């Protein structure tokens, strides 16, 4: 008889498989009162030169700067000038309006797909603001704020979304999979987490060449489960790479809550501990905390202090993409009840609290952003929308597979062109 027969071991306790389940499902009323949200200003800020281990208590804390009274408090307050704060706010508002317009465009059938970053705007925008213009990003698909904060033309983004005549990627990439070398924004891959170790490779190259630029890699909570996450952390630690590795923990990977990626056992920031890498856990809905944490990690990397893993704790307020309906797996009011609030509202309230903003100016700025997005959309749509594409320039489909078109692809190009003519 097989030794796997349970009857042979009837006195031993029966083993149970644990399958993580989120606290709330559709129909439940979310109650986040058990979520530990430390008060702003409480978390200490170590010097950027400390040993990695000294940061490890911070991997279970939460770096927060903006308090209940909307004032910036504590050692992590980056003490940004009001102009920079207003620029961050404006970029965040632009991203939100852009997302709404493009979401609508997809619903109108002008493109196939879109992904919003609603609720997560502070992360990419403030992170970029804390870095130098020349630093390199290896983003995943919800960091459109990096491009906006670096002043990448909105029309270019839309051209890519529409795969139109102005699309510099020649209609080859799914909408929002931007790429722009001059804005230090590496091509987004649909194969998740691949970019995370690539950021480490870029940073190692910068170190090999004695450069002063650093890299920042991005990954979502769900994709930390990929082997590439482990590769990135291992190589970053081994070679002390000048890289910032960011986990955007927005709680949801399509329909799988963060527990399916291991969040029931440890924070994502805690993974830094085992690799001996510096780690920070940051309120991702607090633009000032995001800025301060990235600035800290950048300073550390630039002075050969090595890599930092940062978990940005946030909430994906909308669906995964236009192909997703979250009401099928989570309560619809979860985003509203999320205890860390809305990042745009929080930064606006801060500017109001310090007397550097008013409702009138906010309304005017919002209108300005809205006009800019609409103007860009008008401009982009002149160059076409997705349903009109894919007919002209079929021959370009065969370019850039290799530097030179080899004979077999040239033959197939002829066949495709002939097929197009008939």
């Amino acid at each position, binding site marked *: 008889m097989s030794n796997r027969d349970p009857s042979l071991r009837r006195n031993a306790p029966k083993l149970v498989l644990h399958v993580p389940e989120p606290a709330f499902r559709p129909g439940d009323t979310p109650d986040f009162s058990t979520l530990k949200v430390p008060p702003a200003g409480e978390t200490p800020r170590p010097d950027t030169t400390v040993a990695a281990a000294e940061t490890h208590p911070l991997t279970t804390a939460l770096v927060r700067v903006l308090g209940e009274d909307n004032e910036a408090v504590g050692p992590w307050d980056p003490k940004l000038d009001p102009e920079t704060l207003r620029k961050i706010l404006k970029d965040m508002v632009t991203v939100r309006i852009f997302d709404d317009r493009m979401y609508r465009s997809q619903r109108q059938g002008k493109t196939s797909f879109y992904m919003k970053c609603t609720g997560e705007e502070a992360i990419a925008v403030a992170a970029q603001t804390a870095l130098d213009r020349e630093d390199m990003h290896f983003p995943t698909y919800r960091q459109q704020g990096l491009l906006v904060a670096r002043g990448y033309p909105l029309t270019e983004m839309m051209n890519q979304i529409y795969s139109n005549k102005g699309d510099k990627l020649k209609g080859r990439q799914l909408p929002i999979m931007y790429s722009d070398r001059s804005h230090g924004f590496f091509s987004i891959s649909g*194969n998740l987490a*691949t970019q995370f170790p690539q950021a480490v490779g870029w940073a190692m*190259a910068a170190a*090999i060449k004695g450069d002063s630029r650093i890299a920042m890699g991005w990954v979502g909570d769900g994709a930390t489960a990929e082997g590439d996450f482990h590769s990135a952390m*291992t190589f970053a630690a081994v070679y002390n790479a000048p890289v910032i590795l960011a986990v955007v923990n927005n709680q949801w990977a399509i329909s799988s809550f963060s527990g399916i990626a291991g969040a029931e056992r440890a924070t994502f920031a805690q993974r830094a501990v085992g690799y001996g890498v510096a780690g920070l856990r940051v309120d991702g809905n607090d633009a000032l905390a995001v800025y301060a944490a990235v600035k800290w990690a950048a300073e550390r990397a630039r002075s050969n202090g090595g890599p930092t893993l940062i978990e940005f704790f946030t909430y994906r307020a909308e669906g995964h993409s236009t192909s997703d309906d979250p009401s099928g797996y989570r309560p619809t009011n979860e985003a509203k009840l999320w205890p860390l609030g809305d990042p745009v509202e929080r930064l606006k309230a801060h500017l109001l609290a310090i007397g550097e903003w008013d409702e009138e100016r906010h309304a005017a700025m919002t209108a300005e952003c809205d006009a800019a997005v609409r103007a860009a959309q008008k401009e982009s749509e002149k160059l076409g929308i997705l349903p009109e594409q894919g007919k002209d320039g079929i021959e370009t489909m065969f370019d*850039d597979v290799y530097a030179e078109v080899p004979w077999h692809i040239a033959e197939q190009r002829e066949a495709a062109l002939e097929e197009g003519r008939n």
Partner: protein
Amino acid sequence: MPTMNMIQALNDAHKVMMARDEDIVVFGEDIGYFGGVFRVTEGLQKQFGKTRVFDAPISEGGIVSMAVGMACYGLKPVIEIQFADYIYPGYDQIVSEVAKIRYRTAAEWTMPMVIRTPYGGGIFGGQTHSQSPESLFTHIAGLKVVIPSTPYDAKGLLIAAIEDPDPVLLFEPKRIYNGPFDGHHDRPVKPWSKHPASEVPEGHYTVPLGKASVVREGGDITILAYGTMVHVALAAAEEQSLDAEVIDLRTLVPLDLDTIEQSVKKTGRCLVVHEAPRTSGFGAELVALVQERCFYHLEAPVERVTGWDTPYPHAYEWAYFPGPKRMKKALEKVMAD
């Protein structure tokens, strides 16, 4: 002219190119101080320093993804995957990233890199040190796949691969690192020094990618081979006293179809050989191309000599390896019709 085995020739190619191009970096498992388990990178770290030649963690996915990031930066990585059997953890990075980055960025970023990896059987390596996975890569648009069969070609092809603007996989037939192997495992091992292609020029030269080599001219049958099997095919042609034309493909992608076509149109018969398993092997592509281009010149069905469709079995090395007996049977079949 110096005489080199394939390891020395590959090592020399590294040295020539690293001296010419400061952007070349070399890394992989055990390749630094120690010089690699097959010694291909011996002395490189001492000559070029630790930041250009270094050991990597046992992480093929990590090694390939680091190379991607470095190529994005502007370096030219020449990486070693210790055995081709270990390449699979890096497969996603190779297929989804290395192969596609030029295309998906409309050439804003390119991936000039070389992924070297010893492959193939005949060394009692068991199933995890004997595989021939080349067809998993020839199937992927954006990659070039190169397989040398002599020291001269190994150096020239590696230099050409390093200078190529696209990613190149160089599969190195490890059975013939130290000497050509005709498939007769029971006979004494021959060193490269007795072979004319062990004369390897000093300094820089290239063997162009995408060009096959007619290593034996003949009029009765065309044998298409690469890697170790080139030598097995040459021996079989001699033993069967056939006027066989043996073509060493050298590059699988892009394939030198003109050379193949000319030869098969002349001989009217064709045998395709490789160590890799039969089903969906690169031989299937070769057979399809030959029948597309040469059907009306063929006097017999094109045959394949391959490994079996099983994992590579340790104790049954010589029952698995496509050696002289399998060659003889197939040659007789093609010649009989």
